[in-house]
């Protein structure tokens, strides 16, 4: 197509003007591509990340959305804790197929510590699906202060089976030395699950409770900030469990700490020792001392408090019944993660709509820039157009050359913008994934592709109409023979 060649030559002949115009178009397209793909990727990531966690989440009353975010996506602080008997009742309820306790703890190198039980490893996205959390190596925890690492946590922390670590205070990486006394031993490492739990450390509920009992019993500057203030994380609310416990319990907890510290100092900790240390965690736990030797972590969790319970009801009707039970009760709330995430997506979509509006404005600006560039170029190129006419080009040919020019810039801008947009979306998604462990995947969105190509095409044609009309009307004799 000769018009394309002529248009290309014209563009190449004024590279600065062409690049500036193309960049403006590309930035407008990149903005739209980034916003749309990031929003979509984030929503898909959240859905995927929350997929294995059952139908209902039961937790303390308060923000239902925060309950879901903190429990399933490990984002932000938990709403609070609930009494262990709620978990026990759910576990024994015939309407419940699976109940998994969750106790949110501190962190190790930024990886969140979560107390749970062996049923966590039975979680799956559907009855037919394989368990979402499967071991890559080792075994699941059999006693307190044994830990199973998520795949990313294992890589990030550089820990292997048999390695030992001491958790830090708080939910974010803290200062060196700001550590709990309890020594945890790595007994298993999970396969990647595509959930935030890839960057988590799983242990028993009692291990989490013990750490906070320690924090209450021996507060220092950091723990005062982390725990006594009670605004760092809801795991601190576990302390509130301890607050209801007698002073003797606190002392008992302190004893546990010193026992653990002693072990730590001697660096001769064994799983068995850890278990025996944990056996003295609290007065309540003392009543279940025999359970520690075995594998009944339900007992540990139910002895104190838990942050939340993941519930997989046996059926749809039972799910609604359970939800209604909690809705009419005052002790806790039950929420459907899907509904809460739907609310979150509504918020995300509102944000996207605003950004899309900004994108439209950017597109209009790009179209005006394109129009100005081609209009002024056509003005200064009337001589060339007259030459083309002089050697036999028809009016519609020169008009087409100008239109092809604007469309070429618009479509090249769309292409560059596409690459920039995908690049930016992938970079931001990577950063979100790194920070939150929510797998935000930027994928191909065929449903938006036509619009992302057609819009620049339409803008190109629109911006080129007047300059093309100018070219159509060029007076050959006047331009070639000005005198």
């Amino acid at each position, binding site marked *: 197509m*000769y018009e394309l060649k*002529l248009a290309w030559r*014209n563009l190449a002949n004024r590279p600065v003007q062409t690049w500036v115009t193309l960049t403006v178009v590309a930035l407008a397209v990149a903005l739209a591509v980034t916003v749309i793909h990031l929003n979509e990727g984030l929503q898909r990531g959240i859905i995927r990340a929350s997929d294995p966690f059952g139908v209902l989440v039961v937790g303390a009353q308060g923000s239902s959305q925060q309950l879901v975010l903190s429990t399933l996506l490990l984002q932000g602080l938990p709403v609070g804790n609930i009494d262990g008997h709620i978990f026990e009742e759910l576990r024994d309820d015939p309407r419940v197929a699976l109940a998994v306790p969750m106790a949110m703890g501190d962190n190790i190198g930024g990886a969140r510590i979560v107390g749970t039980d062996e049923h966590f490893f039975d979680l799956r996205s559907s009855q037919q699906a394989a368990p979402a959390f499967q071991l890559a190596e080792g075994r699941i925890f059999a006693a307190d202060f044994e830990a199973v690492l998520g795949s990313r946590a294992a890589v990030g922390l550089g820990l292997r089976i048999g390695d030992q670590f001491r958790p830090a205070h708080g939910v974010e990486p803290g200062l060196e030395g700001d550590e709990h006394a309890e020594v945890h031993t790595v007994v298993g490492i999970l396969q990647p699950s595509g959930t935030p739990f890839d960057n988590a450390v799983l242990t028993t509920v009692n291990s989490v409770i013990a750490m906070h009992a320690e924090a209450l019993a021996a507060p220092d500057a950091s723990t005062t900030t982390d725990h006594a203030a009670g605004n760092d994380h809801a795991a601190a609310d576990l302390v509130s469990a301890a607050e209801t416990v007698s002073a003797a319990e606190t002392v008992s907890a302190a004893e546990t700490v010193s026992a653990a510290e002693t072990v730590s100092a001697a660096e001769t900790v064994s799983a068995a020792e850890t278990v025996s240390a944990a056996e003295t965690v609290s007065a309540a736990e003392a009543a279940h001392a025999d359970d520690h030797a075995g594998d009944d972590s339900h007992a540990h969790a139910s002895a104190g408090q838990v942050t939340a319970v993941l519930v997989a009801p046996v059926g749809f009707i039972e799910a609604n019944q359970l939800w209604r039970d909690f809705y009419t009760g005052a002790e806790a709330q039950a929420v459907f993660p899907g509904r809460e995430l739907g609310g979150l997506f509504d918020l995300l979509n509102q944000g996207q709509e605003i950004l899309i509006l900004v994108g439209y404005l950017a597109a209009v600006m790009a179209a005006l820039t394109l129009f100005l560039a081609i209009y002024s170029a056509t003005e200064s190129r009337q001589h*060339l157009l007259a030459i083309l006419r002089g050697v*036999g080009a*028809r*009016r519609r040919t020169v008009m087409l050359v100008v239109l092809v020019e604007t469309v070429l810039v618009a479509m090249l801008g769309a292409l560059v913008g596409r690459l920039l947009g995908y690049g930016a979306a992938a970079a931001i998604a990577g950063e979100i994934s790194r920070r939150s462990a929510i797998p935000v995947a930027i994928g191909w969105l065929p449903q938006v592709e036509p619009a992302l190509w057609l819009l620049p095409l339409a803008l190109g044609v629109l911006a080129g109409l007047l300059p093309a009309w100018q070219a159509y009307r060029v007076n050959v*004799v006047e331009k*070639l*023979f000005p005198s």
Partner: protein
Amino acid sequence: MDVVLQQLRHTYAAPGLEARTVLMIDEWQATSGAQILLRGISGSGKTTLLNILAGLLPPTTGLVRCGGQSLYALPEDERDRLRATTIGYIFQMHHLAPTLSALENVEMPLVFGRKLNAGARRARAYELLDSVGLRDFHRHRPLQLSTGQRLRVAVARALAAQPALVLADEPTAALDAESSHAVMDLLQESCRRTGATLIVASHDPALATRFDRVVDLRNGALHEAETL
């Protein structure tokens, strides 16, 4: 291609300026294959007449017949097509497309005339550049060529479609005598070979000896001149 002019008048009118009639030709004719030198002082209307003959400038009144066809009875698209296929025009200022190479400039009328495929167009353009001694300059842009070289590219472009009527406006104005002769030789030889009618507008007295017919344009009218 024979050319006939009848009752041709052309008047330039502009707001605030007095209208000026530059052409008043009652009857004039050029037979097919003729080679005619059109003389006249600057501003006499030579370029206007060539523009009219090229189908670029409709006369104010009168009839222009080329090859038996009334040129200005044809739709504009058809006149455009004629310029690409049948009428070759060498502009005084050459008017080469600055964004295209010498080769692409020569190819241009062949593209617009749609007579040949891409390969044949390219071969023809090379052949013509070769004939004007510029094959080695085929990739050069007009700004990278000398005035004489640009003229030769313009000549090659005008001859590209093997037109039946070749119009040349002061083709030797910027050339030395030797180059001038070379260009005129090329033009006249090519036209003789193809049987094309050649009309050259020039005020170069040295050219008169090369033409069997010389016409003077004075006061808007054409006057046959004595030839040597």
